[in-house]
């Protein structure tokens, strides 16, 4: 009897474990971890739900990324890379308050490599 309970509990734990594993992987993340971290640090203060500037949110709201239609996503990906490469984003004014949010060259390169790859992927219809 005791053995049975133990095995049922074990099976239960195994089930839950597998469940969490499956859900973690089936739930598409909008951004890969490294990209998500860059965006969070450099962009989310103004371009994610909860930010104050309507204008910034209208330009892009990364919290709603998955809701954008395909063509809009591709256009935004192009814009994101251009903005950071040209140093227009994050804006100077913001960096005056938060100098630690300035993107490094490595971060810029990483982000642009990703936006290009992602845009390509979306255009292929993946």
């Amino acid at each position, binding site marked *: 009897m005791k053995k049975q309970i133990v095995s049922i509990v074990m099976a239960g734990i195994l089930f839950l474990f597998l469940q969490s594993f499956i859900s973690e992987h089936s739930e598409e993340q909008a951004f890969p971890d490294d990209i998500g971290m860059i965006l969070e640090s450099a962009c989310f203060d103004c371009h994610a739900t909860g930010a104050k500037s309507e204008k910034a949110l*209208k330009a892009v709201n990364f919290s709603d990324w998955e809701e954008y239609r*395909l*063509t809009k996503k*591709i*256009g935004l990906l192009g814009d994101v890379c251009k903005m950071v490469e040209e140093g227009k984003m994050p804006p100077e004014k913001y960096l005056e308050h938060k100098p630690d949010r300035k993107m490094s060259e490595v971060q810029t390169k990483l982000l642009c490599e990703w936006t290009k790859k992602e*845009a390509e992927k979306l*255009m292929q*219809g993946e």
Partner: protein
Amino acid sequence: MSKRLKIGGLALLAVLLILQFFQPEQNNAPVDPELDMLAVLAPPEHISALIRNACYDCHSNQTIYPWYEKVSPVSWYLHKHIQDGKEDLNFSDYGKMDKVDRIGALVDFCDVLDAGTMPLQSFLLLHKNARLSQEEKETLCNWTEDEALKVMRE
């Protein structure tokens, strides 16, 4: 007093006249059929006409100047607008853009119409044929989205 006013008026007139000798370069290069958006995408004529009237004066290399836009200092004010407009988006260079930029330009095109940020209010004041009805905006947005999807599948 009235003499002063007269002299002042004449001086102002003289300055305005002299100003006419200083004109910015006009924005009217020949259309490059390989690069110009309307030439490349060849939309139906009614769509072409809407875009030409509402956008091309500031977002292409072919501005159509009414006489008052050739008068200095209006011409200079306009010149600056055209420079800025073309910097943001120049439909005459459409063919030079890569696929992502072309899709982005088409998507933005619809977005600014939707948001009502373009055409500029100041432009609409004097260019009545640039005013777009809700229906015309929808027509344009349907067209830009179709074209963006086409670019995607190229």
